[in-house]
Every structure is written in structure tokens, then in C-alpha cells.
């Protein structure tokens, strides 16, 4: 498994980059929303930006999709400089923004066809393509309903379909599952994986859900205060905080066998507390067998053993000094407030 992963990884690193970002920054007045980020996205991968509120995720996407002008640095998409060839860039990428942008007074189908018109796709093609895309996101039954009657999940899916109308090779998704229930989120994940696997698209997404980054992304950049703190595969990020944790219980509290455990190959660190040993290891599965064998060979008795894989949560905590869980609650409160404000306005 891990072997396969690493094969896949080298494969990605050999692929050409579809996005190249060098020292990109964007300031709003004195606020540096994005402060000198550099990264590359390889063709065919799912690249994720993970970070808390206000980290600069949306700002980065808005600069890359030419909605905002960069204050410094440069970026290329499919070999095109985003400043010099902004129209070409817009033509070739798809965007699914964080906010709902569909026109509420039009139907879902009208919205997608309008999008197609804005890309200059001839009507002879766009009608059938729009229907195809609505089927893809399972909205064909609601195609002729006004968007104002859609639920939040339906709107997100409509935005996704709109983002695909111009046959993009690269799709930007800004928090594609924000505010969705577990089921709809799973559906969106399914579409995203399908876009990668069946249509060989490259996806650039932002999220603040760790599970999402973990299960969807081939590589993740952790971003905070406009800086990229760490880039790597989910496994690399987890490994970089010290590996798996094995807890072994031994009946006999004496003698202390910490130093013997530490000698076992693959073991990185041992701590004893009472009748328990906390062991850190990069490959916990293999190390734990060896630990049990060693304890038994001493004639001692193992009472229990547990193996904990490090989570991205811990990695995130380590790098940003915060947990995303706390933020999630804030975020949901903010979201619902935003929605009510919108309703009140309309």
C-alpha cells in the first residue's frame, strides 16, 4: 500500500506542472492576504489548500483565476502568464467559487447555458453539454426549476456543473463542500474523484475540512496568514510529526524494558508510564509485532496493545498551533449568519 503510494508519488513529480506559482502576493491596503507563496500543481493531481478562515485561500484562487490582480510575484497556468494572458487563462480553466453565483431568477439549465455563452461556446454544443453536466451532478430533474427553489446542496452542485461547462483541464474549487451535509459532501467527493479519474482533470481545491483534504487530495499545502507552512502528501504531512503511536501494556511493572524497546529497529521513541509504554514508530504495524515478540521472549506478559495512526488533525495542530475543530464551529455560525443576511437582502 505505502509502496504503491510512493510509486504514484514519483509519477506525479515527474509530470509536467500545470500551475506554477512563484512568490505570489496580494495585499488589500496594509493587509497582506497572500504573502509570497510558491508552489506547483502537477497535471492530473488533486491539489489542496488547507487552512483556517482568512488564511488567504480564496484570495489565492481569485488571483490565479484573474479576478484579482496580484500585488507581486508571478504565476503561470498551462504555460500562460496570468497577468499577460488573462483572457486565455480564463478561457482554459474552470472555477467553482466559494459563494453561490448562479442567477436565482433563472432555471438551472438557463444558468449553465448562460455560462456557456459567456465562454463563447456555440449553442449547438452548449445545450447538450449543459444537459450532460446536469445529469453528471444529478440535477436533471430540477433543470427547469428556478434556482431560487434549490437547496444549498443543489446550488453547490449547480456551481460545479457551471464550472465544468468550458471543458477545463484545470478546475478551481473554492470550499466545494462548505455547509453541505455528510451525504451531499460524499456525493461531491465522488464527482471530484470522477473528474480526476475518468476525465483526467487537474483539480485545485481549498478546504478547511481535514477529512476532505486527507481523503481527496494527492498533495496538500497548509496555509496560514498568507504563508504556506508545509506542502506534501497527506502521508508525508502525518509522518513529519513523528509517526504512529503504539501503546503496550505489560503485567510486570519491573523491570523497565524501555531501553530494550528503543533498540528495536523502526522504533523512534519510548516513554514509560506505570505499566504502559508509549512507543513512536514510523511503521507502527511492523514495530508492534517486534515489540510483542521481544516482551514475550523476556518471559513477560502483554496485557494490551493499541496502534494509533497520526491524523492530519495533529499535523495541522503542530504546524499552525490551532485545531480546525474549534474553527469549524465558528465557521458554521458565520455561514448561517451570511445566509440569513442574504435572505434578508433579497
Amino acid at each position, binding site marked *: 500500500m505505502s509502496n504503491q503510494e510512493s510509486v504514484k508519488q514519483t509519477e506525479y513529480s515527474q509530470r509536467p506542472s500545470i500551475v506554477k506559482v512563484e512568490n505570489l502576493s496580494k495585499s488589500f491596503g496594509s493587509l497582506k492576504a497572500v504573502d509570497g507563496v510558491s508552489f506547483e500543481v502537477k497535471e492530473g493531481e488533486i491539489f489542496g489548500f488547507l487552512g483556517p478562515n482568512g488564511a488567504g485561500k480564496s484570495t489565492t484562487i481569485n488571483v490565479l483565476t484573474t479576478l484579482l490582480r496580484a500585488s507581486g510575484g508571478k504565476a503561470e497556468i498551462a504555460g500562460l502568464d496570468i497577468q499577460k494572458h488573462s483572457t486565455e487563462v480564463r478561457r482554459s480553466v474552470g472555477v467553482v467559487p466559494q459563494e453561490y453565483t448562479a442567477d436565482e431568477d433563472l432555471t438551472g439549465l438557463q444558468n449553465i447555458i448562460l455560462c456557456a455563452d459567456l465562454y*463563447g461556446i*456555440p449553442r449547438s454544443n452548449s445545450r447538450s453539454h449543459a444537459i450532460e453536466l446536469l445529469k453528471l451532478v444529478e440535477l436533471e430533474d430540477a433543470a427547469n426549476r428556478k434556482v431560487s427553489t434549490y437547496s444549498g446542496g443543489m446550488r453547490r452542485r449547480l456551481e460545479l456543473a457551471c464550472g465544468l461547462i468550458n471543458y477545463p483541464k484545470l478546475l478551481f474549487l473554492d470550499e466545494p463542500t462548505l455547509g453541505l451535509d455528510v451525504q451531499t459532501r460524499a456525493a461531491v467527493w465522488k464527482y471530484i474523484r470522477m473528474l480526476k479519474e475518468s476525465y483526467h482533470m487537474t483539480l485545485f481545491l481549498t478546504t478547511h475540512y481535514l477529512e476532505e483534504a486527507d481523503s481527496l487530495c494527492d498533495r496538500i499545502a497548509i496555509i496560514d496568514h498568507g504563508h504556506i507552512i508545509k506542502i506534501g502528501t497527506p502521508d508525508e504531512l502525518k509522518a513529519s510529526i513523528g509517526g504512529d503511536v503504539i501503546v503496550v501494556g505489560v503485567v510486570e511493572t519491573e523491570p523497565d524494558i524501555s531501553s530494550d524497546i528503543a533498540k528495536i529497529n523502526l522504533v523512534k521513541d519510548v516513554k514509560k508510564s506505570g505499566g504502559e509504554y508509549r512507543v513512536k514508530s514510523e511503521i507502527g504495524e511492523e514495530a508492534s509485532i517486534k515489540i510483542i515478540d521481544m516482551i514475550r521472549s523476556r518471559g513477560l506478559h502483554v496485557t494490551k496493545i493499541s496502534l494509533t495512526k497520526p491524523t492530519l488533525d495533529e499535523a495541522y495542530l503542530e504546524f499552525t498551533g490551532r485545531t480546525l475543530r474549534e474553527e469549524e464551529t465558528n465557521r458554521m455560525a458565520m455561514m448561517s449568519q451570511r445566509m440569513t443576511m442574504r435572505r434578508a437582502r433579497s
Partner: protein
Amino acid sequence: MAENISIRAVTTAEERALEEEREQEKAFRAAPKLNKSPLHGLWALTNRDLIKWYKNPIQLFISLIQPIVWLGLFGKALNFGAFISSQPGITPAEIAALNLKEFGTTSYFSFLSAGMLAFIILFTAAFSGMSVVFDKRFGFMNKALSTPVGRGAIVVGKILQSVIRSLIQAAIVLGIAVGLGMDTSHLNALSIAGAFTILFLMAFGLSSLFVMLALRGSDWQTQMAIINLLNLPLLFASNAMLPITIMPDWLKNVVKFNPVSYAVDGARQLLLGSPGSLGVPLWVDFGVLTAFAVILSGLGIVLSWRLLSK
């Protein structure tokens, strides 16, 4: 033998399914040839706003009822012709002469009708900026900006939808005015076409102005304030409601700087056969309004390049 055939059939069905899938994938990948002209998407954007207008029965009803109310109530209530005809001992010939002298036509109502055409265009154009503000608020502007559609096309689309709506409303106002007794002796295809060309130019210029003023901000209160600030002065400091002859001199000068005056003047000359009340020939009206429309829409397009990306 029969078995063979059925096996064969299964494989083909499978093959067909696979083929279909491949076909679908190809269709998905094969982007069609795109229209890359700078004006592509212009009609789509214009039409979007028009659909929202005519598919919304309440909005449509209000925009139809508004001119009826203005013409029917205001036009009939403010009947200056009645002052004249209520003078004791005045003959019909004298009434006609007075009307012609003061209003350049047979009655105040006819005089006002031409002004109302300009009025309805001014008020429709004033709200064109509002739709820009709402598009920014509800995210649609960002959607449009993330597509390759021209920034100019976004602005011109907003202007065009307002122009089309206002001209349709002006046509309705004209119909109502005729129904309520406007002088029709000078109406013919040519005079109507000429008047609507004049109104088109004014609508284009005014819509450009209001769209332009909305490009920066994104709150509708400011926009509302701008509308109120400009709308009534543009209306009252013109010859739309009252003849310029009764105005004080300083106001007369203001009126001459107001593009609305030239549209009303041109419309009166064409539709009612009035002498030019601004003291300018018809071609000057056309000239002033063409310049107004070209300059303001040009300015709007240039500003859209600067203001629509931050």
C-alpha cells in the same frame, strides 16, 4: 448455434456500452470551437436581464402602469390648457393660438406627452446602475468576470438591456398618449422613427452614465442616493414638463446643458411639428445626443477595464 449467437450478442452489448462510455468521454473532452470575438456573450448578458424583466409579472406590470399613472393623472391634472380656455370670452381660435404660442402644439397634454417619453427613459436608465449593484452583491458579477467575456461586453450589456426596456416603455407611453388625446397630425412612420432614434441616443447616454456610476460601489443605498441626486434635477432642469419660455434666465442656461432637453426638443419637433424651443435646429439635437451617447458609453467601457478587476 443459438448459444453462440447469444454469447456474441452479449459481447457486442458490452462492447457497445464500452464504446458509448468512450464516446461520452470523448464528447466531454472535445471542446468545441469557441467564439472569441470581443462582443461574444453580449447578447446573452443583455438577454439575461431582459428575461428577468419580462418573466417577472409584477415588474412588468409596474413598469407598464407607471407611465399610465403619470400621463393619466399628472398630464390631465396639470392641464394648463384649461387655464387658457377658462378665460371669459375667449374664442376657440384664440385658445389654439395661445396653445401654439406657449406649447408649440395644440394642447399642454400633447406638449407633456413628448416630455413623458423622455421621462420614462430617464427613470428606466437611472435604475440600470441598480442591476449592476445587485449583480455584484449576489455574486453574478464575479461569475461573469471569471469567464473570458469582455469587460466592455459586461458594461455594454447592462446599457443595452436598459435601452431596450426604456424604448419599449416609451413606445407604450406614446400609444397611451395617443389614446388619451395627443395631437396626431404630425405622426407618421418617419417622424416616429426619427423620434425613437433620438430617444435611443438619450437612453444610451443616460444608461451609460448610471452604469458607470455603479461600477465602483456595491451597496444599493449609495446607488439610490445617486439616482435621487441626478434624476429629478435632470427632469426638472429640462424642457420636459414646462416650456423653457416661462423659466428664469439662469435656469434656461442650465436647461441648455441638459442632454434630456435636446431629446425632448427633438421629439417635439418630430412628433408634434413644434418649432425648436431650445432655438436649435433638429440636426443639433441629433449631434448633441450622439456625442453624449458616444462619450459616456466610451467612458463606461474604459472604466470597466479599470474598475472591474481589483
